[in-house]
């Protein structure tokens, strides 16, 4: 079933929408959740929560690309779940590694606290990503959107792991500069 047909089922409040969503995007959603959470049980719960969230959002929303719409919800729920879990105990898996890597982009905030505007931060990320070469962008998103292990990315692109690490390192450096220039995470907006 096509996306628009599934969305129409949501709009008609037919529970068949959930079955069709599961059939079309179930594996995709579980893969995203599993990479973040590193636990099949947690991933399953996360996907179920995401389906419920989608049920509550459509209508009024009417996404053109249901897969991307759903994937973002799954990822957000998974990261939120992991973040709450990590407040108690640091877990294993790729996400803590990716988190440590992204921490390179954000200076310690010992100075004046900057209130983050999520929308503006997202727009900055979009501008930043738009300025990258396609391969660099894809490698970066594979790591920090899909939370894929470096080895998997290397295999996917036919690169060595060392090259992938090097690419990610350089791109993080660019992101760090971009964030600092815009004053995010305590950076100086004047620069």
């Amino acid at each position, binding site marked *: 079933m096509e996306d628009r047909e599934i969305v129409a089922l949501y709009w008609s409040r037919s529970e068949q929408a959930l079955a069709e969503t599961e059939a079309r995007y179930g594996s995709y959603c579980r893969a995203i959740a599993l990479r973040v959470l590193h636990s099949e049980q947690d991933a399953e719960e996360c996907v179920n929560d995401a389906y419920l969230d989608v049920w509550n959002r459509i209508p009024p929303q009417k996404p053109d690309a249901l897969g991307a719409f759903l994937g973002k919800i799954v990822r957000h729920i998974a990261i939120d779940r992991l*973040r709450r879990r990590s407040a108690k105990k640091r877990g294993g898996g790729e996400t803590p590694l990716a*988190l440590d890597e992204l921490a390179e*982009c954000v200076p310690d905030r010992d100075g004046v606290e900057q209130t983050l505007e999520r929308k503006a931060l997202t727009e900055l990320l979009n501008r930043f990503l738009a300025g990258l070469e396609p391969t660099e962008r*894809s490698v970066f998103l*594979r790591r920090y959107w*899909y939370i894929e292990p470096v080895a998997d990315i290397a295999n996917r692109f036919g690169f060595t792991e*060392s090259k992938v690490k090097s690419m990610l*390192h350089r791109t993080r450096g660019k992101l760090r500069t971009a964030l600092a220039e815009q004053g995010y995470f305590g*950076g100086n907006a004047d620069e």
Partner: protein
Amino acid sequence: MNERKTASAWELLDAFGDVDDRFLAEVEAQPEVQKRRSRVRPRWLAAACVAAAVTVGASLAVGLSFGRGTVAPSDVSSEETSEVTSSPAVLENSSAPSVEPSVEPSVEPSSPTWDTGKLVAMGNRNLMEGFTANPVELLASDEAFLASQREFAYALFRASATRRTDGSDVAVSPLSTEWALALAANGADAPEELTELLGETSLPRLNRLLRTLRERLTADEALTLDAGLWFDEPVGVYEDFLQVNADYFGGAAYRGSFADAQTLQTLADWAGGPLKLPDSGVALYGKMTFSGTWETPFLREDEVVDGVFHAADGTEQAVQYLSQERRMSYLIGDGFYGGVLPYAEGYDFVLLQPWEGRWADVYDFASALTPSAVAEAIAEGSPIWVDLMLPKFTAHAETPLQETLSALGVEKLFGAGALPAMVSGDASLSAAVQTLSVSVGELGTEALAADRLIPVEPPVSSTVTDAPMTSAPEWLHLESPFVYLIVERETVLPVVMGIYAGN
């Protein structure tokens, strides 16, 4: 990571989830698995690519040339002067060298009783046209071979440093020298003096080991290693030697009048900059480039400071220092102290400062340096807080290698008729010069010039600063001549060794 920093990282990670769908569509549209990209670039484009990829953290380019003074006209025709094509028909006769793949290379010149094959027809041309590399059985380095590589590297460095009396910089690339020597050995009458020096008595085995080593060292593309041969117009070149070159070294080979500007241009194109050719004969070049990014670049304004360097010639030089208070491996060895600055690409920049009073000068220290002394210091080094000051520098060195190699036992290579498997006639190499430049900077990329430096506030953030500083940092202020090495982290194999003396 402190809590605030952790929170920021979480926010950033979460924010990635809302990026535009078009980026995700682009990612999803990619094939599941791409084939490994070929690392073989068109020979004549390679140099230009290298030239465009200069200076990241530390960069260098190496030229190693050998030339002989006179060349007897060979027994090949000198009539053909037109530009060649890839067709085998341009070879001397119709029985062109086989370019069909086979399991083994077509020639393994391990014996002095050479079957040198046919001479390539005359004419100015890219001699490697029509030659394709046969599949080669790779051979992984064992510890004994790696140990011999390290021994050769340090022997070359010691020999280069020993003769210095002028307070000048030293910079050698053992890897590039070895690569060029190994290629020369495949055309030499007495390859054993080279193979023994390089740590493997079997030339075919050495070829395989080196080819395998190169593939490993160049895997992440921070390092490139190439060889090139330029032949003066009258020189006859044997096909079988060129086939060995294709199989193991992938080197360029060009024939043209050394007095012709176009020939010089082909060399400059290959090397990424002008290089000298001898008056006539054969010139053999090794080329290595290294483009590494510091794992923790010197990004902030206060990480580049002005200072004074006490040069080896007794003068004081105004320099800029790269400065960081950071956690890094601090080394203490027999007669020296130092540190290890990691690159992001699997290499380390090793800094060795000789103790004052222990050595007459930095050259004295370098002349006594051994692989075991450095390896032990690195193995015992521990990450601690270090107040580092490293001068930004660009060192250019031109090292006459013939004397150095002679000191290492290489004599026959420079005798008359020493290359019977490479060229026709009474060929020999009469000169060997290595030129090398090393550049060390805050980042290395042109994209981050001084006016793009990040302001002093807020404090720098990186993995090396995560652990709290619990005691006063050790000082590693390299304000007087010191030794540096670029080594592969896993094997501690030096790819570059040098002395920064301030000149």
